[in-house]
């Protein structure tokens, strides 16, 4: 019975992240538009865009290889698997033991590895500039993420996300300096990983300021749809991650009743909405930074993560 419940939770979660991801992107765009006194597209515009792209004929460069065509599906799959393993509304995910937070970080790194390769496949200068800058950003964001994982794993005694969420819900979890540092670092990493302002601009079409968008410049139709979908999923993943570690309230525990699950979903939606609005407010109130300021920004996150785990190592002696 418990197995069925866990499997059901896992299944619902997989469907839920897929359904909600474009909506979150739509919400952020809408709020940003309203904040800049524009009407903005409707909330469900990302779904329409995806459907439109899916139905179109793909245009490939003459020398695009099989790697270019396979990558969108791989990126989508890896991001989806990662997003399905981060607790959203309940902790009792059936497959949560198949990858811990380090493995989830690495799964996202796999997706980026292939995307960066695809950016270089056609052999255009924009693809190269995008890939090159993307790996530079990743080479600092990933270690920062690992240090954050260290911090949280040392506090919760586990790097398994379901266990971490359960620990954070329990009365044992208290405020600590390390946790605060980890939160700041995680927010910085989330901004960089999702190519948001001030690191990158998802809405830009001024070529030299693009990173992520330059890398996927050659993609069209269904391939582009998969990549955009993966980007939405990744944004949802990072918001879920921050929510399940730092504001776990409302998460249904392992083997809870239907009422608890329903409550979990409602609170999750509320958290996503708040997160989306916060992103929009943050992005409208800050300017994009030069690309060579980004390493300092991310280096800060890396150092904060290192400092947080050093503090924990030192504290554990008593």
């Amino acid at each position, binding site marked *: 019975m418990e197995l069925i419940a866990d499997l059901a939770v896992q299944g619902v979660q997989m469907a839920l992240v897929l359904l909600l991801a474009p909506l979150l992107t739509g919400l952020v765009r809408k709020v940003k538009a309203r904040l800049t006194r524009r009407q903005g597209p409707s909330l469900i515009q990302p779904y329409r865009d995806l459907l439109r792209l899916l*139905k179109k*004929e*793909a*245009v*490939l*460069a*003459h*020398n695009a*290889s099989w*790697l270019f065509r*396979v990558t969108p599906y791989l990126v*989508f799959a890896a991001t*989806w*698997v990662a997003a399905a393993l981060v607790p959203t509304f309940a902790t009792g995910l059936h497959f949560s*033991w*198949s*990858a*811990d937070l380090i*493995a989830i970080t690495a799964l996202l790194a*796999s997706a*980026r*590895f292939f995307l*960066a*390769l695809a950016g*270089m496949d056609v*052999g*255009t*200068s924009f*693809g*190269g500039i995008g890939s*090159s800058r993307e*790996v*530079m950003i*990743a*080479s*600092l*964001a*990933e270690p920062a993420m*690992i*240090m954050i994982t*260290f911090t949280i*794993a040392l506090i919760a005694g586990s*790097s*398994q996300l379901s266990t971490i969420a359960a620990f954070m819900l329990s009365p044992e979890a208290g405020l600590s300096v390390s946790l605060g540092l980890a939160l700041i670092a995680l927010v910085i990493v989330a901004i960089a990983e999702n190519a948001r302002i001030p690191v990158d601009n998802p809405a830009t079409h001024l070529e030299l300021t693009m990173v992520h968008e330059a890398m996927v410049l*050659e993609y069209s*139709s*269904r391939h582009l*749809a*998969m990549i955009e979908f993966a980007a939405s999923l990744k944004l949802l993943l990072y918001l879920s991650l921050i929510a399940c570690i730092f504001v776990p309230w409302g998460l249904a525990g392992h083997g809870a009743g239907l009422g608890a699950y329903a409550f979990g979903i409602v609170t999750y939606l509320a958290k996503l909405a708040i997160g989306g609005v916060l992103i929009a407010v943050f992005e409208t109130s800050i300017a994009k930074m030069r*690309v*060579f300021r980004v*390493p300092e920004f991310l280096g800060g996150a*890396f150092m904060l*993560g*290192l400092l947080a*785990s050093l503090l*924990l*190592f030192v504290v*554990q*002696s008593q």
Partner: protein
Amino acid sequence: MLIEFALIPVAGLLAVSLAAILAGGRPSISAPVYGASAILCALVAITGLAAMLGGGVSTTVLPVGLPWLGAHFRLDALAGFFLVVVGLGGAVASLYAIGYGRHEREPWRVLPFYSAFLGAMSLVVLADDAFSFLVSWEVMSLLSWALVLAHHRENENRRAGYVYLMMAGFGTMALLLAFGLLSGGSGGYAFDAMRETARTPAIAAAILALVLIGAGSKAGLVPLHVWLPLAHPAAPSHVSALMSGVMTKVAIYGFIRIVFDLVGLPSWWAAMVVLVLGGATAALGVLYALMQHDLKRLLAYHTVENIGIIFIGLGLALAFQSNHQTAGAALAFTAALFHVFNHSLFKSLLFFGSGAVLTATGERDMEHLGGLIHRMPATSIAFLIGCVAISALPPLNGFVSEWLTFQAILISPELPQWGLKLSIPTVGALLALSAALAAACFVKAYGITFLGRPRSKAAERAAEVDRFALSAMFILAGLCVLAGIFPGFVIDALAPAVASLVGGQMPTQTAVPWLSIVPIAESRSSYNGLLVFIFIAASATIAALAIHRLASRAFRRSDPWDCGFPSADPATQYTAGSFAQPIRRVFGTLVFAAREKVEMPPPGDTGPARLHVTLRDLIWDWLYQPVAIGVTVAATRLNALQFLTIRRYLALVFATLVLLLMVLALWS
């Protein structure tokens, strides 16, 4: 019993070399030599596997070597594991060379040394006394030096050979002194006698320092790594694969055998030294690798990084061991051995791939390559698998060993010493940084070499390589995938070796449901490569099928978009140098004293603009250059002594004798 089974194929390897010498290294014997080596190495690997899984110890004494000592050999679980690494690497490299060796212009410079080199590496692993160990080690070094000089007409290779010979001699001397200290006053050269000798902490520290120099220089530990990126790429590609993938592992074996087995219980500061050296090696190695545009040199620098990762694992194991935490030591040691195995797989694979590129295009410089994915489809798939594996990305094998290392770091806060408390998280951060930079490095290596458009005529005309080379690459690629999705089997196979050295082992992994791996307890952390692999494969396939079925599968070819300005000239693509430029800007000034100088022609002038980038190896400048200068100065001064008359020489001898006698008199 097993030891004889191991020694017979090793003797066979030496005999093959002898036969190759007698045949004068004619090109026609190339295939038989490599074929025989492949079979003999496979036998070595099978014997090693039997010893590794059986966990028993088998010893023998042969009446060769020093008259009163004989040559002791011993095959235990640890030696078995390293015999698997040597045998497997040797067998696959020989298979590769059946095809690759045909392109060798001067086979008589490779064939006589090749099999004996494999045999010598096996003998290092099997040796059970200091004398046989050192002789095998030195033979291994000299034969690999001869192989490095196979293409000695290139100036660069001669310099590589010279630096390698100096470093190898220096390293062996350090090992010689280490064994001298190990045998102590009693002078027992057999390893059994050394295990029983008690030592003071000062002696143990001196031994550790000497082993770090001796084995560390062979493995490529920073700052003793300078010869490695010169020598490894200079050899023919299958030998490069053996040097990087296997010989560095033999050096690691030497370190493990002496430090974990012969010296006895370590102290925590020894662990700290190893950890810090490992962390520095990992981070510096990958940064150097990122700056290279020679494919083989990039791979060689990357070996330095992986050696660092292995030493981090070993340092953690020492830290846990010095505090009697067996579970942690077993986890860290397993992680290190797992990475030894993984690195031997993917580094050989990548060197084979670079050899294939070299055969097909005659180029090692990435700036002249590109677009090979269209012309060498099979090689490009195998090389891609190698790149994903070495970048520590799931679900392949490189990720598993790094994940295990991270797990070992996560249980280390309980260690009481302050030095460890501060150094372990820092080393963890360096490990995380080097893993991320490795991915960047291999995006560059693969993207510039195999993707994009050809940057030279040679790259345009490239053709796929022969079947032997391809099958060797695909065997290794397959093993990378298998070790990544079934890591539990590898961990269980390593258990006897781990148990014999640290006195404990990780929980049995193959009994865990769904073939997950669980280092400590499932509530702490677990990982399942198989499920991750299935999930990704299934969801990618379902997504692709559903879209092709329900939405659209139409496509057409067209010019690239490139924001409306596609250029037909391949020179407009990103190059290896420009790809690494952002990372050079971030780390370069600190690590390489990087300088960029732009020369712009004045307005109106249509001459070319130039960008000069200078990178310096600071370790070379600060550590080696002063030593070289010192030696030169001393040699110039002493040069005067070469041209004395016989009377003066006699006076000099007499004065020395008197001086020594006086010293002796004052001493007592």
